[in-house]
């Protein structure tokens, strides 16, 4: 079979089963079974597939995935995150679109405490959104920032997806995690500037809300000192211990989730209900991701074995495009995929091609990894199937519909594309911070 036919067969089956609605993990397994029978020598190949799927998940480097998710879930279900958000709200005064700014600042801080974009969006959506709508905020300036900043949790460590990407792509996980910080902060800044600008020009979309009790001095700062500053300890456990080289990403993740459990106990919020809900939600998300990993590792092997990977890489190589153009092309593929496919599948589908291509074109894998993370983050909020659009729909009041959500996402999609463009053109912005720890 020519490489083109193999590629067409494997991707065609994948698309067929996937679009029919078979869960992604079983779709990969189904295609693997066909692929193993044809390309890996039948019975022996099928046996190999089973062993591969075991080796794929029995991997210490993947342990941070559940642990980073657990951190966010614990802080969310114990109510600690809500207290932190209201403490931040008390500090931010006299800015146009105040509550939208609170959601960007609060969401960015929570991003440094949680590896789950879903927890981040659900937190802000259930804490700040009702208040904004009650005060007459326009849905676009209320919903948009929450979804956009929800996605930042994927960039700023702890990030479960960065761990997944790093471990499968063979990029240093700690460097990839640290490499997400600068782009994450750039995005939060862009979101904040946009909100202030838009609300200053048109104050009616975010009515002033400073009619409530006004706090000053210690009363204003006390909640921040008691409810937010101590959480800095958890951030240090995760990010600090990695930058200082004290702990591997897996160890940092364990310390971080232990830290969040200790914090919850210290605030006397760790009851049995909160703990079991955190663990169950963590289990759902983690098993979903891990089982897709178990299924898809063999897929990339079959792609390689059938000659499809090599054929495609050589064909693209023959086009003789520059590394920049090639990276831009990969980003474009991810952006298109992101409109319809989830983040884990995006990684699994593209990595088998992207990493060999990057290697042959001399593209820095760390830079490419961060660009991939941002492209996938965009996929979280691009209509029609961005995951966070639906998380938002799930937590928002019923009088708003999916059209409101789509419209609210558009300005923030453009801002993220802008940041992505800047990082594409100046790799040093991404690479300097990880460079510090080299």
């Amino acid at each position, binding site marked *: 079979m020519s490489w083109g036919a193999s590629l067409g067969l494997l991707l065609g089956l994948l698309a067929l089963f996937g679009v029919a609605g078979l869960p992604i993990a079983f779709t990969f397994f189904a295609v693997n079974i066909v692929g193993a029978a044809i390309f890996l020598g039948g019975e022996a190949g099928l046996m190999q597939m089973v062993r591969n799927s075991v080796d794929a998940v029995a991997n210490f480097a993947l342990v941070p995935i559940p642990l980073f998710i657990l951190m966010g879930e614990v802080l969310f279900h114990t109510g600690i995150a809500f207290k932190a958000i209201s403490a931040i709200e008390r500090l931010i005064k006299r800015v146009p679109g105040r509550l939208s700014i609170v959601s960007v600042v609060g969401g960015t801080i929570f991003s440094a405490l949680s590896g789950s974009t879903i927890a981040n969006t659900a937190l802000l959506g259930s804490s700040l959104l009702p208040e904004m709508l009650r005060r007459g905020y326009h849905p676009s300036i209320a919903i948009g920032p929450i979804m956009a900043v929800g996605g930042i949790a994927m960039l700023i460590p702890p990030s479960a997806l960065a761990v997944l990407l790093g471990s499968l792509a063979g990029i240093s996980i700690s460097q990839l995690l640290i490499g997400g910080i600068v782009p994450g902060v750039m995005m939060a800044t862009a979101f904040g500037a946009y909100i202030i600008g838009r609300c200053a020009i048109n104050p009616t979309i975010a009515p002033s809300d400073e009619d409530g009790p006004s706090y000053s001095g210690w009363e204003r700062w006390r909640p921040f000192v008691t409810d937010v500053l101590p959480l800095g300890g958890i951030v240090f456990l995760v990010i600090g211990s990695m930058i200082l080289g004290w702990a591997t990403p897996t160890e940092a993740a364990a310390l971080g989730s232990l830290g969040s459990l200790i914090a919850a106990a210290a605030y006397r919020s760790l009851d049995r209900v909160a703990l079991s809900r955190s*663990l169950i939600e963590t289990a*759902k998300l983690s098993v979903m991701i891990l089982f897709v990993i178990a299924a898809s590792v063999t897929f990339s092997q079959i792609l390689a074995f059938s000659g499809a990977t090599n054929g495609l890489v050589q064909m693209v190589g023959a086009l003789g495009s520059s590394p920049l153009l090639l990276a831009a092309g990969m980003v474009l593929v991810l952006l298109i995929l992101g409109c319809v496919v989830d983040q884990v599948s995006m990684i699994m589908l593209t990595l088998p091609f992207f990493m060999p291509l990057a290697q042959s074109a001399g593209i820095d894998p760390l830079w490419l990894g961060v660009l991939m993370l941002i492209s996938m983050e965009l996929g979280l909020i691009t209509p029609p199937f961005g995951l966070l659009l639906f998380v938002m729909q799930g937590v928002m009041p019923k009088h708003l519909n999916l059209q409101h959500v789509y419209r609210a996402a558009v300005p923030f999609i453009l801002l993220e594309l802008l940041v992505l463009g800047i990082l594409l053109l100046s790799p040093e912005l991404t690479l300097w911070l990880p460079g510090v720890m080299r």
Partner: protein
Amino acid sequence: MAHFDLWFGRLLGLIGIGVGVIFAVLTLLISADVVGRNLGLGNLAWATEVSEYLLYAAAFLGAPWLLRLGGHIRMDLVCTTLPPRARTVLELLCDLLGLAVCGVMFWYGLAAVRDGIQAGTMIIKMLVLKEWWIMSVVPVSAALLIIEFVLRLSRPFRSGAGSEA
């Protein structure tokens, strides 16, 4: 059948709790290892290996539980736009395909276990384990998945009790 469905759902629910507990154990185990090492109290040399096996067990044993909850990620863009009848048919076809996949996993998982027993293969790292102990999680997981897929297939033909998905 409905009675069995209910009972099986409870079993899967227990497994879900077990998976949550595994993640709590991973947190404590790895933290103890790091803290112990940095305080010079010695380290748990087996912690890494045990963590890997626990992660693998969580992924495979948790999969049937997640299937029951409808939590495996899927693209439902076509399904949701179809009329109800066509949708039911497509769901049935997907469940049949899922069942076939798990059947293959079960068969070859079992073959790997049998090979391991016959050849007496050992995994020698920090811990010395028989390979088939580790491999046997796969057929167990596949068997639970098969049962859940069969229950899913049978639900449209039964009325009422036991259906959660």
